[in-house]
């Protein structure tokens, strides 16, 4: 019903023809439509007439617009071959290839015709949601019982391992405190060493041995300076620096040094 007006009768109006060709679902669709214009029974249609109709339509369409889709042209070429074979002069032996091909075409058209009839039969059924309606408000008597537990031993094992791994992981990530020379350490070392040194000594001489990293060395210098300042405040130490950023010298404090540290 949708494409029932055949395009074959409409080769006059070229614009309309183009539109109609595009309305078909491919060459087979058009062929079936043309065939139905001929006969009710597909088995009795004239293949030759059908071929001529198709070629005429395609030729008409191609005259208007050359970019016809490939499958339309492939079908046209095949049908042109079929036509040439069927047109062999009477009296010569019938071309078996051509007759076979004509039968194949008829069978394909018949199969498509069948399926089109089946589609119409289906569409004529009382379709749910279109013609008949099911209950709009179904009731559900299903009750969900969630009282039972879905647990298994592997799950328990996974839980145990996960807990222990996490706890272990937390411990190993705790960073160890860096071993830095503290002010208290420096003070103890200064007190122990300062009496043994007769005269001015550089601050570096009071640093602890085995300072591995630059960070440890800088920390030790700072701690020792702070410790020496602390001792100088009480008079137990004298400090001297000749120029800015120059080396710092330490000496044991004496009572007559007074408070000019």
């Amino acid at each position, binding site marked *: *019903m*949708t494409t*029932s007006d055949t395009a074959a009768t409409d080769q006059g109006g070229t614009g309309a023809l183009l539109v109609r060709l595009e309305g078909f*679902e*491919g*060459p*087979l*669709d058009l*062929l079936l439509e043309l065939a*139905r214009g001929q006969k*009710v029974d*597909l088995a009795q249609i004239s293949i030759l007439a059908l071929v001529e109709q198709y070629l005429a339509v395609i030729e008409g369409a191609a005259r208007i617009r050359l970019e016809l889709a490939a*499958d339309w042209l492939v079908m046209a070429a095949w049908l042109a071959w079929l036509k040439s074979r069927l047109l062999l002069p009477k009296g010569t032996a019938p071309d078996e290839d051509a007759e076979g091909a004509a039968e194949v075409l008829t069978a*394909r058209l*018949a*199969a*498509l*015709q*069948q*399926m*089109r*009839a*089946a*589609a*119409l*039969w*289906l*569409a*004529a*059924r*009382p*379709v*749910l*949601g*279109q*013609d*008949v*309606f*099911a*209950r*709009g408000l*179904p*009731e*559900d*008597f299903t009750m969900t019982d969630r009282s039972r537990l879905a647990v298994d031993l592997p799950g328990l094992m996974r839980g145990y391992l996960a807990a222990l791994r996490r706890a272990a992981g937390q411990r190993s990530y705790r960073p160890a405190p860096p071993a830095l020379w503290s002010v208290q350490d420096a003070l103890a070392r200064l007190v122990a060493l300062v009496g043994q040194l007769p005269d001015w000594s550089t601050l570096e001489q009071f640093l602890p041995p085995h300072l591995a990293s630059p960070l440890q060395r800088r920390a030790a210098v700072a701690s020792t300076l702070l410790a020496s300042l602390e001792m100088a405040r009480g008079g137990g130490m004298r400090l001297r620096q000749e120029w800015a950023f120059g080396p710092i010298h330490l000496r044991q404090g004496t009572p007559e040094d007074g408070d000019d540290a």
Partner: protein
Amino acid sequence: MTPDEQHLRLAEAMVFAAAGPVSARQLSQVLPDGADAEAVMAALAAHYAGRGVELVRVAGGVQFRTAPDLAFRLRRVVQVPRRLPRVAMETLAIIAYHQPITRGDIEDMRGASLSQATLDALLELGLVAPQGRRDSPGRPALWGTTPAFLTHFGLNSLRDLPRREDLLLEPPDVAAGSADDSPPADG
């Protein structure tokens, strides 16, 4: 109230409540032991015959549906989705009759390529589903119809489809617009 009347009430309640078709097996789980589910279904169908709601056999079970002759008035108040386009109906018919079938075979039969929109429309309604793959190069997916297909078109089983030979006995003019069946929407 006879026991049979009580069976009828139970079946009525169960089929009414269900969202889809109810099979005899499902019904017999609710009925008392020894009750004949098929007989109860038949009695229920008889009770509803000719009413506004009817009991129909569909997809291997029974389901209540509004009587088809009332659709005209009901459509005023019930939202009706668009009908499937002609292309989708043809594709569906090919799948129904030739399942399981590959997309390539469908395209060969129709002599046209199958658009994604068509496949989407059929999938969205749940009318077709992939059913494995064919053991051939590329292992293409095979398509078939679903129970929802039966429910949608009010079929009890695929055997309810007319035989292919019988389809062609009808004159093709049914296509040319017989008055009573409305054409697919897309024209």
